[in-house]
């Protein structure tokens, strides 16, 4: 895929066509993806304050990784008619992350799969706002959180459905596992002002499954291995379905490495 790069002018706006780009300091804060273009965006430990607009039929795939503390990011995505955006977000460090999505053209679709994996005394907050402003759009959010030690995680998700956004199809799910003294707060919210919609949301905070740990130990795995494997399994679907296939392996490695510290 063609590499997209920018001049070292971080201010202002740019328009891009099909290609892949890795976020850097040179990326302007507002980027428009041309109608019909297909863009892949990789963000790795880059503080981002990025506002993206997808013109009609544009497709954007994002892999967003935060493994270093203090790298905060906010990502805005505005989708026009039939535009499609898929994001995978993997966080293993203390951070604040926000994703704001506006489905502003009929037929637009947004998908986010996210994981945060926290240990020690890490603090992490994730916010996902999805606005269905027009009819016939689709959104999916699946966010998985794992916290061990005395870590604190927070997920807050809002799905807003405007009065005219009929036939909205939206799902938001926050699933979490806590260990030891860790704590995860999850706040999924639905605000629906249209009547013909299909919206679901859910949130769970649980512990590791003792029965599964017992089962794995009976087969010879140590207690630690059994716990790690279970967590790896818990978050695996998010990374295995990451929208940029070549990144999957790296994401698996990042999580695997982080798991050793849990």
């Amino acid at each position, binding site marked *: 895929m063609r590499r997209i790069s920018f001049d070292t002018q971080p201010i202002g706006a740019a328009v891009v066509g099909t290609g892949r780009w890795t976020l850097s300091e040179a990326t302007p804060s507002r980027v428009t993806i041309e109608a019909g273009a297909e863009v892949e965006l990789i963000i790795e430990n880059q503080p981002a304050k990025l506002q993206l607009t997808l013109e009609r039929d544009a497709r954007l795939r994002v892999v967003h990784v935060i493994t270093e503390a203090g790298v905060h990011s906010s990502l805005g995505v505005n989708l026009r008619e039939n535009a499609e955006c898929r994001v995978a977000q993997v966080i293993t460090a203390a951070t604040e992350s926000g994703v704001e999505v506006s489905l502003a053209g009929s037929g637009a679709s947004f998908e986010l799969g996210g994981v945060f994996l926290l240990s020690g005394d890490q603090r992490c907050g994730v916010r996902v706002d999805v606005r269905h402003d027009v009819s016939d759009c689709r959104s999916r959010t699946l966010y998985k959180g794992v916290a061990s030690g005395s870590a604190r995680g927070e997920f807050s998700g809002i799905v807003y459905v405007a009065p005219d956004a009929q036939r909205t199809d939206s799902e938001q799910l926050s699933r979490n596992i806590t260990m030891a003294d860790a704590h995860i707060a999850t706040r999924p919210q639905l605000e629906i002002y249209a009547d013909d919609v299909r919206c679901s949301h859910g949130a769970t905070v649980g512990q590791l499954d003792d029965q599964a740990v017992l089962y*794995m130990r*009976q*087969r*010879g*795995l*140590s207690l630690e291995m059994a716990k790690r494997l*279970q967590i*790896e399994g818990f*978050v695996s679907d998010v990374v295995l379905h990451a929208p940029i296939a070549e990144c999957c392996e790296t994401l698996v490695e990042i999580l695997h490495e982080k798991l050793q510290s849990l």
Partner: protein
Amino acid sequence: MLKVENLHASVGDKEILRGINLEVKAGEVHAIMGPNGSGKSTLASVLAGNEKFTVTAGSVEYMGEDLMTLSIEERSRKGLFLGFQYPVEIPGVTMANFMKLAVNEHRKAKGLAPLTAAEYLRLMREKSAIVELDSKLTARSVNEGFSGGEKKKNEIFQMAMLDPKLAILDETDSGLDIDALRIVATGVTRLKREDNATVVITHYQRLLDYIVPDYVHVLYKGRIIYTGDKSLALKLEKEGYDWLINDYKEE
């Protein structure tokens, strides 16, 4: 191989095993039968090392060692296998990946190097054939969405992979159709050797048509109240437990 003496175990302040005596030698097959709730699964769990149960009295010797001082995983690596009555689902963890870790932990305990990818695949193919396990199942998450019969076959597949010294199979025959029962039972029989032993917990004599036991024990209210040969299973099937347990009902 296994010597259980006067074993007592409780959960909370409820005593479930109330003095079990059982000796299993290499090359033997033992069947444990008994009404629901008599403590069969508890005995299996205690032998496997499930920490939910507290051993309050008695001793268990396994291969010359005090079994009760070993952790669950140490017991496994020393060749004790438990086929679960209710195999557990582990979402997102593939069977193949899980077994690879397990096999390699067992090898590590024996001072052997981990298997190469090719060796592992070969082992998996060979062992899944023993229970006619669909190879697609090994690519799926452990037990997740497996049918009842597939779960039980999968237990025997794992047993084959780990090649245990002592296998305790807790109702591995329950919920199987005729064909699956034959496959599972034949699988167990094929894994049978002079230097290993099998304890099958079952409610049905039909399993024992395939896996012919040297001893049949009846467990009732936390004790083995009767031991016979395989004809005992036939008698139990016909006459039930009443003739045996009447004497104990008052306790």
